């Protein structure tokens, strides 16, 4: 089994070798390491993608990200897009939803979103075709994909910045809160006398 350290080192060097700058290669390496740690096929996808780059297959770089991004002539490079998305995430967040068309090897785009989720402190949902991925503050990635289903091109992509909302109802919360109160002790008058601030006025 390869260690994550080996995965990071090889991904960095390979990325530099196909033409990314050292700084970009560092970003890619961290992301591939994260994919493998979370159980996604990072090395497999990076390898396939770099094979195409080495065969001179062209991909487009999208640096000016908008709310709705038009169809490009060529599929978008998931790495350039990922780095730009990460760099601009605070500017992009007010859009709430962002759409892209044709992202190559979308699994390689996921870790950039995951890191972005941590930076902005919001969960991010990405949907393409029948796949949904929930990026949870860079702690994990929730998905229902099977390795066979993951497409090499994500044709219609929608990214949503989710508001920080509870995933439960007020009733559910209150029920639990009532239960938790059973661990508290009723205060007697003598206990109240000795509590913090007792004996002082708030205007002294």
């Amino acid at each position, binding site marked *: 089994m*390869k*260690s994550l350290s080996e995965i990071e080192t090889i991904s960095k060097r390979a990325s530099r070798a196909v033409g990314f*700058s*050292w*700084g970009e290669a560092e970003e890619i390496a961290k992301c591939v390491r994260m994919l493998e740690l979370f159980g996604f096929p990072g090395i497999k996808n990076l390898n396939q993608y770099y094979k195409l780059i080495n065969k001179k297959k062209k991909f487009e770089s999208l640096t000016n990200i908008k709310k709705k991004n038009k169809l490009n002539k060529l599929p978008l490079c998931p790495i350039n897009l990922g*780095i730009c998305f990460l760099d601009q995430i605070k500017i992009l967040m007010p859009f709430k939803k962002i759409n892209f068309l044709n992202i190559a090897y979308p699994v390689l785009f996921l870790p950039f979103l995951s890191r972005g989720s941590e930076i902005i402190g919001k969960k991010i949902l990405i949907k393409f075709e029948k796949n949904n991925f929930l990026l949870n503050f860079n702690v994990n990635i929730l998905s229902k994909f099977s390795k066979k289903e993951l497409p090499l091109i994500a044709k219609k992509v929608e990214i949503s910045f989710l508001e920080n909302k509870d995933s439960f109802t007020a009733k559910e919360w209150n029920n639990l809160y009532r239960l938790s109160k059973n661990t508290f002790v009723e205060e007697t008058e003598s206990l109240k006398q000795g509590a913090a601030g007792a004996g002082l006025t708030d205007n002294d």
Partner: protein
Amino acid sequence: MNVKLRDPNIIMKLSRLGSFHQSRLSFLRSFLNEFKDWEYNRDLFNLDKNGYGTAVYSFKKNDRVYSLVCFANEIKDDERSDRVIATKWDAAFTLHDGIPLKKDIERLKNEVPKQEVGRLSYKELTLSRANKSVRVFNHVVESLSKGIQPDLDKLEKVGYLYRTTAVYGSGKFGLADRFRIQNRDEINGPFRLEMMLVYLVRQFTFDQVNHVAKKINPKSAVNLDPKICKNLGIGNSTGLGMAPFIVNHPTLLNNWILCRETALKEIREIKNVSIIESDLFKNCIKNSIKNITSWNTESEYQQNKIKLLLKDVRKFTYFMEEKFDFQKDFPFNELYLWLEKETCDECIEYVVSIMMEPFEKIIQPLIKKMSSDEDKYFNIPTDRTLGDLKIILEKKYSNILTIDFKKKENYKKFWFISKNKEEPRIADRFKEQGSDLEQPLAIARDIKRLYDRLLPFKSNIKISKFLIDNADLRHVIRRAFIIEKFPYSEIQDNTISEKTIPIDMLRLKLSFFGALKFDPRSDKWLRICMFQGAPLPNELKDYDEQWVYKSHN
């Protein structure tokens, strides 16, 4: 009194970093301190009459066990090489997490001797190999087999029976990643498991000579005197593999240096020093002189440094003994100021290390701060502005920005990874090919390039926008935002200059390991000694913390 931390522009110069010495903060000393109450065992010692075979040593506490698995092999004299290009070694070692099963030992027997081309598993933590100092090893075996102790003069010249030529950890060749073990309390200091491996290898070398001598002459052979063992360490040959580490781990480098600087600051701020404390300091200084006079090297560069060090340490000792009163307020501050004025860099750093000896209360909490969660500082704050970045560069890299990188001598060298051994190398870009594959270790040049490039831009432009067309400088933009928070994270020097002495980078790291007797064999590799004078495993429960100044070699 509030003493300021020393200026990174002075401390982080290569020549100063290359003058660092071991101290109480050094990893091998903090390792001994952490493991002193662990149970030590030799669990297996299955060597043949020539000393070849397998051995296992362990440290155990409660349910936790770390086991060193040793494989000693026969190699021909012409196969023995300390260089990284070697493919065979006298012995190979791995530190196994737990008690190795028979099948683990069988698996490791096939992989560990192959080193870089072998595969380890997440159950192994560190990997190493070592070669005999053949002259010393044979002399010791011969003497012991005759029933006599070896000639101490011969031992003193070398100081060890074996020298390691690499010690690997943190995920290399399939070893366990750091994250798997980082929450264990006992390894909360850097390189602790690497230190454990080297320490147990030292014991293996003693057991091996005793064993071979006994096999040669079972009736009259004697064991190596434990006092002699104690004064032998483990050698190490180190090449450029270590140099990029300190560039590639800026926050870790910062934490090492910051702890040293904080220790010095707090010691200088002590108003009243007790007689016990001042006596301990004085004794360490006086005893340490033996470490300098027994420091052998053929390197003219190092000989000159040692000569100057010895002269200045003697001058300091005279001043301290004859003209200085420890009863005055803030005595260490005064001593430090005197050192700065009167002595060389090597002597300043030497005495700074020894100043830490009496102050365990200051040092112990710092040891816990020497690791780093590097990923936490990896993201570039791209919503900051170029104005912010410019201020950081001007403030934190002021000396570097004065270097003229149009002059050939200032960018003559380049760092690369050798295809043959996947190891870092340095070469002359005007003579050798390969500079197009340069590693990102020319931080000073790239910082200057960044500064020049951002000058025409308006200061309110966001970093995210600048990065779109300047991806080639992304690695140094990241570093600039790291140094903003971590003042000692960067070498404040040019690592590709004609005058760069790469061993200064090695020396910095080795001093934090706790190495002694730096012996440069060229400007690109050196030999050192570790654990010389250290307590033996059966003495760990109650040992003298200042052992390093009481070695007899």
